[in-house]
Each structure stands twice: as C-alpha cells, then as structure tokens.
C-alpha cells in the first residue's frame, strides 16, 4: 500500500470510539505503516457528538484529514454519518450503523429524527448501511458494535486479518473475547452486502 489511507470515525459519546482508533492504529503499526490518530474529539461519554481519525501510510505528518479527503467513514450512528460525509472523497466508502440514537432536539421534539437518512447520503460515495446493533444482539451482546464495524473496515484494507484478530484480542475484555471475534468475522462480510 503506497498511498495514504484516511479513516474517520464518528459517533455518540460513550460508544467507544477511543477503542476503535486504538485498535486501528495498533493494527496499522504492527503491519509496518506509519500511523497518526486523533483518538477522540468531543465530550466522550456524555451523549454529544464525537469523532476521531486514523491516517496510515508510508509517512504521515498530520493526524488531521482535510474535508473531501477521507477514504473511509465508520459511523456508529446514522446522523453522525451524515454529519461527517463531506469529509469523504468521491467514491469514498461509508459504513453506517443504522441504530438510531436520538439527539436532545429529537427527544424534545424540536425537530423530528430524520429516519430517511439513507436518502441524504451523497450519491458520489459508497454507502454500506446495516443495523449493526441488531446484528450484535443476535450474537448475544450489544457491546461488540465497534468491533463489527472494524471487521467491515478490515475487509477493505490490505492488512492480514490475523493482525486484526491479534490486536482485537489484546484490546477487548477477556470475557467478551469470543463475541468480539464473532463480531469481527461478521463485520468482514458486511461491506459486500450493498
């Protein structure tokens, strides 16, 4: 992989974005790339919008990604996917967890939650949308959403999936090891469904 890969993650405080950036950066590092991340920007764990980024390639200077230059967007919540889609380059790929989390404006009915979010994605990007939360609940736990999303990303990157499994195994709580591995495998199949 000669070219730089730019990945943006977005979600709601408390969804575990830091763990995701940590895993991606460790994987890329172990695979021999230069890596820089923004672990998380925003109020973590307080239900606000949060985002992070990982850049990997031969030499990386800034952890920041300019608008219109991201290759991948992993959105743990659909509105957060919409919020960050302008960062994707044309033909960039968005992986969207469609499980909705209402912002205060929707809770307070100041405005309706836009359930038609899929129609609002750019037409010049590739959108892969799944209810990842529901898929995880099928595996028995809601706690593996991030790792399932990482599976979808892993499928796209030219990095041996054994490295992913190793790093994920080292990063998640031992008692959820099996569920995380299953979630990762399932995630690897998600990208191709669209």
């Amino acid at each position, binding site marked *: 992989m000669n070219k730089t890969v730019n990945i943006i993650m977005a979600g*709601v*405080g*408390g969804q575990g974005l830091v763990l995701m*950036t*940590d895993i991606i*950066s*460790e994987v890329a*590092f172990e695979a021999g790339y*230069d*890596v*820089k*991340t*923004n*672990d*998380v*920007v*925003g*109020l*973590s*764990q*307080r*239900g*606000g*919008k949060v985002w992070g980024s990982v850049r990997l390639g031969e030499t990386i*200077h*800034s*952890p*920041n990604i*300019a*608008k*219109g*230059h991201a290759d991948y967007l992993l959105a743990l919540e659909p*509105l*957060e996917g*919409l*919020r960050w*889609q*302008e960062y994707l*380059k*044309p033909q960039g790929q968005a992986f969207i967890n469609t499980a909705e*989390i*209402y*912002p*205060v*404006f*929707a*809770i*307070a*009915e*100041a*405005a309706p*939650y*836009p359930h038609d979010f899929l129609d*609002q994605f*750019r*037409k*010049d990007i590739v959108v892969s949308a799944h209810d990842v*939360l529901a898929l995880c609940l099928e595996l028995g736990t*809601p706690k593996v959403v991030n790792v399932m999303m990482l599976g979808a990303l892993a499928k796209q990157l030219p990095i041996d999936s054994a490295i992913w499994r190793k790093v994920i195994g080292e990063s998640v709580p031992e008692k959820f090891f099996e569920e995380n591995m299953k979630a990762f495998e399932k995630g690897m199949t998600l990208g191709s469904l669209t």
Partner: protein
Amino acid sequence: MKVKMLTGNEAIARGFYEAGGHVAASYPGSPTVEMLETIKKQYPEIYAEFSVNEKVALEVGIGASMTGARTLVSMKHVGVNVAADPLMTFTETKTKGGFVLMSGDDPGMASSQNEQDNRIFAKFANMPVLDPADSQEAKDFTMIGLEISERFEAPVMLRITSRLCHSRTKVVLSDRTEVPIKGFVKSPSDYGMIPPNTFDKQFHMRQRIEKLQSALDDLNINRYEPYDGADTLIITSGLPYQNLRELAPKAAVYKLGIVYPLPLDALRALASKFNQVVVIEEMTGFIEDQLWLAGIPCVGKTAFPFTGELDIEEIETGLRMLGVEMANVFLQVAEEASASEVEPLTPVMGRLPMFCAGCPHRPVFDILKKSKKTVIGDIGCYSMGILYPLEVLDSIISMGASLGMVKGMKKAERLMGINQPLVAVIGDGTFYHSGMTGLLNLLHQSDPTDNITILILNNGTTAMTGGQPNASSSPYGDGSDMNVDLPKLIEVMGFESVKVVDQFDYKAAKKTMEDAFKHEGIDIIMTTRPCALRFKIKEPHFAVDPSICIACRTCVKTNCPPIHMKHYEGFDKQKSSIDPSMCVGCSVCSQVCPVGAIKRS
C-alpha cells in the same frame, strides 16, 4: 529499539519516567487527565497524585523540586490561573530538582470555558516554553524540559494542545535512568521570597532566559528545513507544523521546539535572506509579536485565524493569500468534489451533550427547571444544565465561583430592595477544589434574611473528567483514602445544618428544595446519589405501557437519553418509550409519570 504508539499524554508520562522523574501532581482537567493516570497505572517508581486543586498540585510540586526531586505538574490551561499565585513566586527561586509544568491548552475550546494562550502565561512567569508537535516530541521535550530546568535553574512550561494530548503517534522507548534526589538544603535567601530576598531574583529570572537563549543551538530543539530557491521563510511549531508539512509548501521552514525564548539572532540573520517571513501559530500572535519586537518584520495573524485550531485548510488559505506555492492542495480538491454534487447536503441535526441515563443530576435539574429560579452554576457535568432543553443555569464562570457569585448577586439585589430566592449549584469535586472558601465567606456579614439555597451535588467523584477520586469518594466504595464527611465539614464551618437528600426519592427532594427556596436565610442541601457512569450502576430497566401513557411528555422532559416519543402499533397518538439497552433503571421517569405508566421490567 522499542517503538510504541502513544498519545501525547502517555508520551509525556513516559518521558518523565525515562528521565528518572520522582514526583508528579495534577488536578484532572481535559485534555491532560490521561497523563497523570498513565503515571499512576504504569510507573510505580513515581509518586503521583491528583491533588485537591491545581494550586495545591503546584505547591506539592514546588516542595518536591526544592527537595531536589524531578517534578512534573500537569493541568489544563485554566488550571494555571488557579495555580498562578504560587507559580509567579516560585519562578523567582532557583529551581533545584527539574520542574516541568504541563499546560494543556485548548485551541478551539473542545472542552473548555475559554481559549487562553498559556505561552503568554509562561513568558509572564519568566519560564521557557516547549511546544511539541507529536508524541515523540512530547516525550523528548519532557526530558529536555527537566534538563533545561536544572541547568538554567528555571521552571519550564511544556505547552501541549488538546489535539496532541489525544493524538497517537509512534514513540521510541528507552529505559529509565535513575537520578538521585539531592535533598533539601536550607537557604532562606533563596527560598524565602520576601524583600529584600526577592530583589536579586528579578535579575536571576532575566539572566537565565538570556543564558538559555544563547545556548539554544546546543539544545538541538529547533530545526531549520531549507528549500531551494524559496523566497518565503515560514516559522511555526506544534501541530500547525505537521499540518503545514501535509501541504508541502515551496518555502523554507523554521520549526521551533521552544517558543520562548526565541533564537532571535539566528532568526534575524535567516529572515534577511527571504522576501517574506510567515508565522503560523494557533491562538495569539505570540511568536509573531516577539519577532516584531526584535525588529524582524513578519506576517502572521493577518493571514491566519486568531481563534480555533489551524487545520490544513486554514493554513492552505493563508498561504495562498500570501502567494506561497504548495505541492499538495486540499481545498481546491474538496471544492471540485462538492461542485460535482447535484444537490447541496441537508444540514444535520445538532447533538448536544446531555446527562447520562441514570445520572443523579437529572431529578435535581428537573425540579430546578420547574422552579424557574435564578441558578448560578459551576464547573462539572452539571454545567450541561445550561444547554437546551434544560436551560436551568443562568451563569457558569469558573471552578467554585458559584458560591462567591451568589453572595455578590444577593447583596446587590438587597441594595435594590429585592430578595428573590437565589440558587447556587456545585458538585463535590468543585466544592473541595475552590468552593469551600466561597462558602466560608457566606458566613461573613450575612443577613439572616438573605434567601440563598446552595445545592451540593455529591456524586462521589470528579465526574466530568472521567471519574477521578476526590475527598468524597471513599464512602461510595471507591477505595480512595480520603473520607471527608461533607455535611459535618460544613457544619463545623459554622452553618446550622445541611439537609441531606436522596434525589432519587423525587418527591422528598422536591419538597426539600422548594422549602429551601421559600425559606429566608442560607439553606444548604446535599444530594447523595453516586455518579452512574463512574460506579457503573445498572439496574433492571423501565418500560412504558402505551395503553396507560397519556402522552403528557413529563418523562420526556427529564431529558433522558433512552426516552423519546414513538408510534406504537394500534395507537394513533405517539406515546413515550424507553430504549431498554440504554436505560439503567434509575426510576426518575416512573416517579414523575402522573398516571403510573412506567414500570420496572
């Protein structure tokens, strides 16, 4: 050679460890929290503590440094204001054990109440300022900072911005080098800072900066990157340097590692070879001003924003304006991409932070909202009570300020001839940090008819920064060694009584608060429920019975993440609903429901 991915915070902790650091003290504040947490978790060789506030942390550090220990004190930028008093005098003394003050600045205010540029603070305090640009430099500069501190007998500021604190980059690791602690040597004229002892210290502070300035070349901390045929010299530091490199400008670059003092002679000589000198720095024109004062003409804040972060795009815009060519462009590409869009993107609904599911602040703010009182807030998770849709708080200034302010407001209103109930809200951590003095001050010249209610939200932790222990944590089973009985402390101060209330008994809490609002005099109420997040509270969830729900939205108005209106099959009107995966079973919604439609599952 061992290489690891570390955040800026982790790298500073590592640098301090490798440099043989002895004592570290801090008060938790974003973006610096993980630095001290890393030391506590990973480096048992170092004595580390979260002190009661930044001033105390700095004083702990002063004591350690005077004893010859290598010392690191960390805080967010506004914490330096709290620590300013000891800092401005400590800096007069000849620093013995290397002393580094890590200041987490927050350009763009991702998690802060202001955007102050602490490089100015350091210059004010006659301290050298190091400004790392990635985690490797964060580690290296921590170590160099300790050396500079000992060699030039000065405290050193390691200024790092929020983005770099939380950015992960490669860092080369080394082993720890043990450094002996020299021990305290009595020298009253050096450590007793009253006149006349302070007179010669003014010269010491000046001379050490001059000495460091002339030794900058040996320190290998600044770097010149020439560019063939360039007519522009760019001077920069920190993350803007990395953003600049992404653009690959056709210009020479002088990358500063130390931003005070500057290598002015070298820069003057270099600048004369170029048509223009451009300074790229976040927030104030700190470097730019120093260059102008030294007679080096340059362009800075006329081309780059004075507030917020300087991302790649802002730097590209500024350089274009100044006619500097770049090998890589980003804005143009993005503009072309968006031009290819047929329809403009729909604006996305905002997402404000809110109290967590099960947050013990929720019933308190629900009661306060209904009371429509004037409420002076403070700094903590409950600061979110100023946001939509709660909009309960009327002011937030700084740590502990609510208790002083409420008195001033009351006294001013009494002069106007009014005595409406005023409420101050403060958390336990903030109370210990700097609320206690404000409370004590309320005993002074208080009129027994002054209608003031003070709500102390004791959740057993410093919650907003991730749940660090504080003086109230022990009774909550936190394992911390401070066990302050908060109501007893307040009563010992001289207040009549503290009403202790479990706010999850909604009716009792409401009555206690409303009685206090009606009562003339100072009422102090302490709530007792612990932070749901810190203590991972999860009880069986609640569920709405749509056949009983009358869609009054009383539960929705408590503003809880899992609760919203939805369509149920067989019902025309929307009814309330609770997302079982998010609900932690606090019961507040079921208590406010007027028809008993919400029951525990």
